[in-house]
Structure formats: structure tokens, C-alpha cells
């Protein structure tokens, strides 16, 4: 396997010498996400496989090119899971791409995001140097938390080689409730429930229905079901998978999709277009080819930010522009990890 790392490092050094942009790619399932693609392909799929996994340690170490389906299957056989429920967006999705994109699914507000579960990384920086940060233990404050920095950096700071990630036990029982509510009432309820000790692990408002997933010990789930009321849906697991993978009708018919990450209690957004609400109100999807500045102003007003998640005109910038003081730090970090400016250029912000 080291020979593959050497080849990848060599490719990065060559590109650095020639100042040729590289486009790091795992399974290519998230090619749609982030700024326009540019550069020569540098693929991770050859560097795949699980390096270490001991269920009692709650840690899995795998190479970046390992498919999420392979990881899910292994964890499932051992009664565990990637608790942040990463969206795959296709069978080819890899762990490296999953962490680089930093996207999380329905359980995010309850157990944390991709970045919360990352314990360590091995990576190649823009000089082709082989670096390791973090480790395989739950608590580690030696040095800056560079491994979490890589989550969501879209490969602009380095090519992920290996990732160690915290795993969690699968819930023993799960059921999903549905109640009819408008958006305003649903947002209120999601937040009120989240302030109570209830075993809720996902919420979603879609087509005037509020969905809530209950998980845990069977008696606890049953008791919570009595408290919350509503109708139990038959295919809860499938429902949340479709929400996560954006396969519910809401997404299917949305050529342009915005994601707003905002304060959970924000009232239903007065933006034109259909909306789907998740994460107790902290994640709102907007299916509309809306005016970027209007969407971003609404997100900022609500204490958060907006991303042009899929489709649309990427020239407006995919991610919310940063304040100058913050952007300065970003630029300097980019320059130190990728001094020749060759890694996934333009994927996060157009000017680096």
C-alpha cells in the first residue's frame, strides 16, 4: 500500500513543480458539490481498505478510497454505525470524499457531525508530504486539531489518505412518528421536543407533515411514543435514508437546491420556493432558483449561512462569502498547506 502513497505523493510533487492544478476525487459522487471542477484527476480509489477496527474501541481506521458501503456493512455486522449518517449520493461514495465534503445526515443535531466523529487523519499536503494528525483515541488535545479542520475542507488543504473515526452502537429499536403540522408549528415542536429529555434522533418537516424518529431501548421508545402521539409510519428506516440521500420527491423535482444552516428556532423563511426542514429547524432546504444575495441575507439574518448545494449558477459563489478578517486566515491556511495552490482550486472559494 505504501507504493500507492508514494505514487500519489509523487504526482502531487510533479504537479507542484509544474503548477498544474489537481482535482482530488474519491468515488465522484459529490462532483456536483462545491465550486466548478478543474485540474487533472488524482483519484483515491486505489488506496482503499480498512486498516483497523476493534468494535470495543469504537474506532474505525480506513483508507480514503474505501467505499462507505463497505464500511457500513462491516460496522453493521458488529452492531455499530457511522452515527452522523453521511449522505452517500451513490454507491461509489468513499470515506475520504465523505469527510472532505463534511456532510452529515438526519442524526447530526443529536450525535454530532462528520467533524465531531473524526479522531485523526493521515494526509498528503500540497508538497506531497505525508502527515498524521490526531490519532485513534477519544480524547486528544496534543497539538492543534488539524484532523477536524480537514472535515469539510473539500480537499483544498490536502489529500486525505487515512481517517480514524469514532463509531457508535446501532440503536436497539427505532420507530418514526408522523403528525400533520404546518412549518411554523413544526419548527416550534421540534425545538420544544429538543429541550426535553426525549429519545429523538431525527426530525423533518416535509409536505405539511412533521416526522420524528425515536431510538433507544424498547421501553423508552414506547414511552416517548405515547408522550408525542401521532401515527407510526411503516418504513421509517427507508424514509430517513431517502431524506438523507435526497431521494424524496422534494429533491427529485429541484433543479436548483439551496441549503441554509441557521439558528434552529428561526421562523419559516419568507423565501419563495418549497422548503424542507431538518435538524430541529437548524437545516432548511430551499428548492428554488432564488436570488443568491437574498438567500444569503436571510441566512445571515438567522445567524447562519447559505450554500448553493446543487445546480444553479455557480458564478455567484457556492458558499457564503466570509468576512475579510476571517478570509485572511483562510487564505493563509491554504497557503501553508498548499503553497503552490494546486489542490482542488476553486472548489471552496473561487480565489484559492
Amino acid at each position: 500500500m505504501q507504493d500507492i502513497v508514494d505514487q500519489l505523493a509523487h504526482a502531487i510533487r510533479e504537479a507542484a513543480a509544474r503548477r498544474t492544478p489537481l482535482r482530488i476525487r474519491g468515488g465522484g459522487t459529490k462532483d456536483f458539490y462545491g465550486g466548478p471542477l478543474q485540474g487533472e484527476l488524482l483519484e483515491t480509489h486505489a488506496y482503499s481498505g480498512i486498516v483497523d477496527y476493534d468494535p470495543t474501541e469504537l474506532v474505525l481506521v480506513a483508507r480514503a478510497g474505501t467505499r462507505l458501503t463497505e464500511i457500513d456493512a462491516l460496522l453493521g455486522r458488529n452492531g455499530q454505525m457511522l452515527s452522523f449518517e453521511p449522505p452517500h449520493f451513490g454507491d461509489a461514495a468513499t470515506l475520504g470524499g465523505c469527510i472532505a465534503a463534511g456532510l452529515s445526515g438526519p442524526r447530526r443535531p443529536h450525535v454530532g457531525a462528520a467533524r465531531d466523529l473524526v479522531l485523526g487523519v493521515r494526509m498528503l499536503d500540497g508538497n506531497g508530504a505525508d502527515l498524521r494528525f490526531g490519532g485513534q483515541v477519544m480524547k486528544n488535545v496534543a497539538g492543534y486539531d488539524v484532523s477536524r479542520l480537514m472535515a469539510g475542507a473539500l480537499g483544498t488543504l490536502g489529500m486525505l489518505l487515512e481517517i480514524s473515526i469514532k463509531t457508535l452502537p446501532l440503536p436497539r429499536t427505532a420507530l418514526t412518528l408522523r403528525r400533520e403540522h404546518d412549518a411554523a408549528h413544526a419548527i416550534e415542536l421540534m425545538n420544544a421536543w429538543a429541550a426535553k429529555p426525549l429519545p429523538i434522533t431525527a426530525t423533518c418537516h416535509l409536505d405539511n407533515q412533521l416526522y420524528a424518529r425515536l431510538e433507544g431501548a424498547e421501553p423508552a421508545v414506547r414511552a416517548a411514543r405515547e408522550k408525542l402521539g401521532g401515527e407510526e409510519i411503516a418504513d421509517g428506516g427507508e424514509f430517513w435514508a431517502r431524506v438523507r440521500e435526497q431521494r424524496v420527491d422534494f429533491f427529485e423535482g429541484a433543479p436548483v437546491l439551496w441549503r441554509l444552516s441557521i439558528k434552529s428556532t428561526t421562523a419559516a423563511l419568507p423565501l419563495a420556493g418549497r422548503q424542507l426542514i431538518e435538524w430541529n429547524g437548524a437545516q432548511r432546504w430551499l428548492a428554488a432558483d432564488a436570488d443568491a444575495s437574498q438567500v444569503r441575507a436571510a441566512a445571515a439574518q438567522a445567524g447562519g449561512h447559505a450554500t448553493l448545494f446543487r445546480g444553479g449558477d455557480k458564478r455567484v459563489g457556492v458558499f457564503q462569502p466570509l468576512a475579510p478578517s476571517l478570509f485572511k486566515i483562510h487564505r493563509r491556511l491554504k497557503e501553508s498547506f498548499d503553497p503552490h495552490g494546486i489542490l482542488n482550486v476553486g472548489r471552496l472559494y473561487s480565489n484559492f
Partner: protein
Amino acid sequence: MSTVIESVPVDFARQRDVAAALRAFMPPESVLFEREDVQPYECDGLSAYRQVPMVVALPDSEEQIQRILQTCHAKRVPVVARGAGTGLSGGALPLGNGVLLSLAKLMQILEIDASARIARVQPGVRNLAVTQAAAAYGLYYAPDPSSQIACTIGGNVAENSGGVHCLKYGLTVHNVLRIRALTIEGEIVEFGSDGLDAAGYDLLALMTGSEGMLAVITEVTVKLLPDPECAQVVMAAFDDVEKAGAAVAGIIAAGIIPAGLEMMDQAATLAVEQFVHAGYPTDVAAMLLCESDGVQEEVVDEVRRVEEIMEAKGAILIRVSQSDSERLKFWAGRKAAFPAVGRISPDYYCMDGTIPRKRIAEVLRRIAELERKYGLRCANVFHAGDGNLHPLILYDANKPDELERTEAFGSEILQLCIEVGGTITGEHGIGVEKINQMCVQFPAAELEAFHAVKRAFDEDGLLNPGKAVPTLARCAEFGRRHVHAGQEKFPDLPRF
């Protein structure tokens, strides 16, 4: 430890100049430089390292902090930020040529938004004060470092503090949503958002645990969680450390993530029982405390399963708390472990490594060997659930070489942690204390990457310089001494 920082002679002209510049916009009582005024700031919770700061500044607003930083940046004066000074790794050790920036006066809880379950606080607010203020809404702030009655949120963010409950509820990094801070140049920066993520790089993660080296925190927004409906603790005793370690692994293997899972060895158990009479058996090799919290039905179910596992793994005594007061009594022992050890020994040195859980028994055995090697006793207290160990080395500073032996003992424990795949600090930070061991844990390229991260925030290296990340020159020096010492000891022993 013994390596007290060499006292830097005070440059009186510079001291007067800096103090005068700060007093131009701050009241005189908020800018201290007389020896007797600045002496109380000479150390943090790691009192073996002491250095009197040149000037102490006590701002009471973000605007004052901004002007202090602008002034120091312009005059190239290094700045060390400090919360309550309870840190255990010397992260807030002052500099003899620098300004000690105390954030203690910024102690307002600015907002509690109960429906959004967030609190916005100033950095000098005490950890426990957040939970107390949130209690009226049935909410609390989860990270609970043992010093929570005194330590501040700003310090918690700087050190990424943990606590007994972080196995289930996460560290500080998992419980902070937004940080407002000032760069050394005096620019306001905001990391994170009121949502669950932010645009751009995850600088919130980078800031958390950065030991005051990247920016000065002026405001923190934290997550609040609902109070659990109930909690119960299972206490189990074992006649063999190995069995206790197996019980820890067994609980995790059964798919249980307890709210807390703590372990104490015989020395710690004995010291604690004599001190607080928590009802622990004293003739056992190891004790486990396993807490379940949540809704009633979940707790009942989990406690039953934990009891079964403890029994299956050979516990010789199992007790389950039957009331909240009994639960608190069980915890009182664990929480008093450090002072209890302080009672049986003139001095003790608290270590903080993290190891993979499966190596617990092995590491305890190796620590016992080191006790014999150094002729010193060691009591072990663990956050067993996440493999974070706190060996407490007992020594007497008045005996001529005990401090040196303690330091060497501690250093070997840290290297043992690295060897078994762990880390030299789980929650106390590097500070000045473990800076040499950073050279063992990280190769030069990674250390250089850390320095580059610092430069991205603080080009001139004025914020808390000399902490957390060693220079390569320092590592080269440490490496020489280290190898040299290794060659002197047992040169004939095979190493593999």
C-alpha cells in the same frame, strides 16, 4: 515540574512604557505592574512553573481587549491570556517580558435562549455558572471538568476541556457553536455560527484546544442540553485490574455508551475511602463507577444490562445507587480523588494520557513496574470509558531528588501512552509541561504544520509564544538529551 522557568529580569523602562500605554485607555487599577500586584498571576494550576509577568491587564470589555492587543502588537509585546488560572499544564504561565491578559472581569452571561438551547457568555464566566443559569429552563451545559466551580468557559475552549460525562456528551469542541475573538492585530473574527456549522474551514475546531495561541476569545456561544430525567450509578469492585478492564470493554461491546465510566485502582480507592467514606470497599484491586442517564425506561434497562456485564466479568461486589443522594455519595469519592491523594502524600503530580481502552490493564501493569523502578508510589484514576488516565505520582518535594525522579517517571508514562497508540494529553493540554513530549509524539513535518497554523493567525508569534508546540531546535536538543540518557541506562538490554 522541577523545570521552573528561569526568571527573566524585568526591563523597567519597557514595563513603564507598556503600562503607560495601557493606562491611556484603562483605569490604573486595571493595569498592574508592581511586584506585589502581579505576583498572584505568576502561575496557573501547575504551580511548579512560576514566572512573574511584566504587566497584568484586567480589561472589562471587548473594546479594551482590542486596544490592549493593538498596543501590544504595535510594540511587539507578547500576550498570555488567562481565565481562572486552574489549568494543569502551565498554558497560562506568564512571560517576564509580556502582558498577562486576565479575562476574569468578562463574566457576564449575555443571553440564554432556552428555546434554541444556547447560551451566549463572556469568556470569564465559570463553567458551572452556565449550568446554574440554565437550570431554570431544565437545561445544562454538558462538559464538566473537575474544576468546574472555578474554571472559565474561555479557558475550557482554550484547552478543549472534557470531564466525567464527555464519553456520552462530548468534549468542549462538541458543545460550542460560535466563538467571537480578537486576533493579535485587534481584528474581530467570528468562528462557527448560530446554526450547526459555518461556511469555510472549520476554524471553530482549530480554535478549540489551541491554548490561547491563535486568538483571544471575547464571547462564546455554547449548546445547552435538556436535563436527563433521571440518573443511576452502578459501583463494581474487582479483585483484578485485568477483570475491571474487561468489564469496561464488555460494556462498550454491548452497545452501551454510559454517561460516565470511571475506574480507580487500589491506591486511589483506599485514599478516597479514608478521606470521604463514600462506601467503597478498600481491599479490592480496582473499582468501576458506571453512570446511566436519560429517560426512566432507558436508565432502568441500561443499569440492568451493566449489572449483568459486571457480574459476568467477575465483579466481587456490585451496588446500584437507590437514590440521588446515594448516587452523589458514590461520585463524591471519585470527585475527591485528587485531594484525597493530596492528603496521603506531601505532593503529587497529575498526569493525563489517553490510551486505547484495550490496553488499560497492560498500561497499569507497566506503571506498577515504573513505581518499583523509581521507588515512588502512583495512584491511578481513569476516565476508563474513553481511555483517559490520570496517574497521580506521589512524592515529597522536600526530599532532594524526588522531584527529578517524579518527572522522569511521568515522562516514561507519557512515552508509554504514545507507544501503545495513545496520546500525551487527553484533556489538560500541552502548555509548558509536556512540550518536550510533543517531540516524541510528532515528527518535524507535523510540528512545522502546527507552526504554520499559528502563523496563519498570529504572524509575529505574539500570542502565548513558547507553549504547546515546540520549536524544532528544542526537539533536537531534547532528542540529544533523551538518547544520551537512554544510552547511559541499561546499555546491554535488548530493545524491541
